[in-house]
């Protein structure tokens, strides 16, 4: 019995020593990590950098491959949410634009799906270094963006009565000269006591050229697409009547198009 206890004690001592060695003295190294393990704020920075690099290079397959390291089932909504978050936190608008554009282009579905991210099979035994596959640089497919020097024109301005919207909205759709939706267009909204802005492409499920802004009933708004020299003034949530005769505030739909040069 005494021997048995001594053995158990020796085993426990060994176990404790082993764990102390593995967890404290020589733990699995923090080197050779992958982007997926980054802390949330670093991850947000990393995702933004992917979008900014994509914005500069237009290389969607490479952006997809970079995003694949995070193993998101669908990165577009995550990028969209990050764009809105960064915009709200006062980060440069160019970052929000880049994130929105990448989200929109991913949703548009151009380019081949990326191969899965390299995985680390067992902690402590990192896989061999990922070989940097020389990218053959296919012709980049990008979401059309506004061309400087060609101001957008207001195409249509329609009141919208849609009870399904749930709240009065200023809806904006922006298309280029070819009729293709344009993501990342900035829209300024000004009213008596304040101003705000939003971008198209932050709700890619509604269209990459679409953006909206919640209207407060009774407030008169002026709206201008930054890439347009044509402000739209005097917009206010009108009154709509539902099928059951209840009244609710209506919305506006503005469509802008870049004229052909």
């Amino acid at each position, binding site marked *: 019995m005494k021997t048995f206890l001594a053995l158990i004690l020796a085993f426990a001592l*060994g*176990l404790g020593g*082993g764990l102390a060695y*593995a*967890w404290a003295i020589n733990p699995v190294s*923090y080197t050779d990590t992958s982007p997926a*393990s980054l802390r949330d704020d670093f991850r947000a920075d990393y995702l933004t950098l992917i979008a*900014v690099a994509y914005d500069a290079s237009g290389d969607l397959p490479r952006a997809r491959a970079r995003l694949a390291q995070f193993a998101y089932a669908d990165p577009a909504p995550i990028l969209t949410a990050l764009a809105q978050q960064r915009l709200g936190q006062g980060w440069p608008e160019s970052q929000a634009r880049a994130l929105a554009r990448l989200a929109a282009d991913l949703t548009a579905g151009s380019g081949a799906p990326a191969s899965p991210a390299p995985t680390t099979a067992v902690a*402590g035994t990192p896989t061999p270094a990922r070989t940097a596959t*020389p990218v053959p640089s296919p012709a980049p497919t990008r979401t059309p963006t506004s061309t400087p020097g060609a101001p957008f024109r207001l195409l249509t301005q329609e009141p919208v009565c849609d009870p399904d919207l749930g709240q009065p909205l200023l809806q904006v759709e922006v298309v280029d000269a070819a009729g293709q939706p344009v993501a990342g267009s900035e829209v300024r909204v000004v009213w008596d006591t304040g101003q705000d802005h939003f971008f198209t492409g932050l709700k890619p499920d509604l269209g990459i050229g679409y953006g909206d802004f919640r209207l407060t009933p009774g407030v008169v708004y002026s709206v201008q697409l930054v890439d347009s020299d044509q402000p739209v003034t005097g917009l206010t949530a009108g009154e709509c009547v539902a099928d059951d005769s209840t009244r609710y505030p209506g919305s506006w739909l503005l469509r802008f198009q870049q004229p052909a040069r």
Partner: protein
Amino acid sequence: MHRHEVRALKAIVRLLTALFVGAAVGVIYGWVVQPVRYIDTAPGSLRADYRTDYVLMVAQAYAAEQDLQTAQVRLASLGPQAPSDLVTAALTYAVDHGFTRADLETLNQLAVALRSAAPAAEIQAP
């Protein structure tokens, strides 16, 4: 050797064996079954290929924005090394691993800009 000495020796061997087995189990558990988890890491701990790709992204952004200070801030996330050293290391890795000519030129453009820039005040990692 006396009988009680043999018995004591056997006991010591058994104890050492138990100690060794316990230690082995502990190490296996600590390294394989329940290792230190990779969470909340910083870009500075990224593997060399990911670090290189990070620097490349910074260089691509710099190529479009021409904002050296922003590039330096982004590079500061990778650690306390001088930004130009980080880019040089990335260039070396890129050359060794067959990155495209365009990538090498993009990296080189940032390296040249960093080298030609006046020494900047220390930049805090974001």
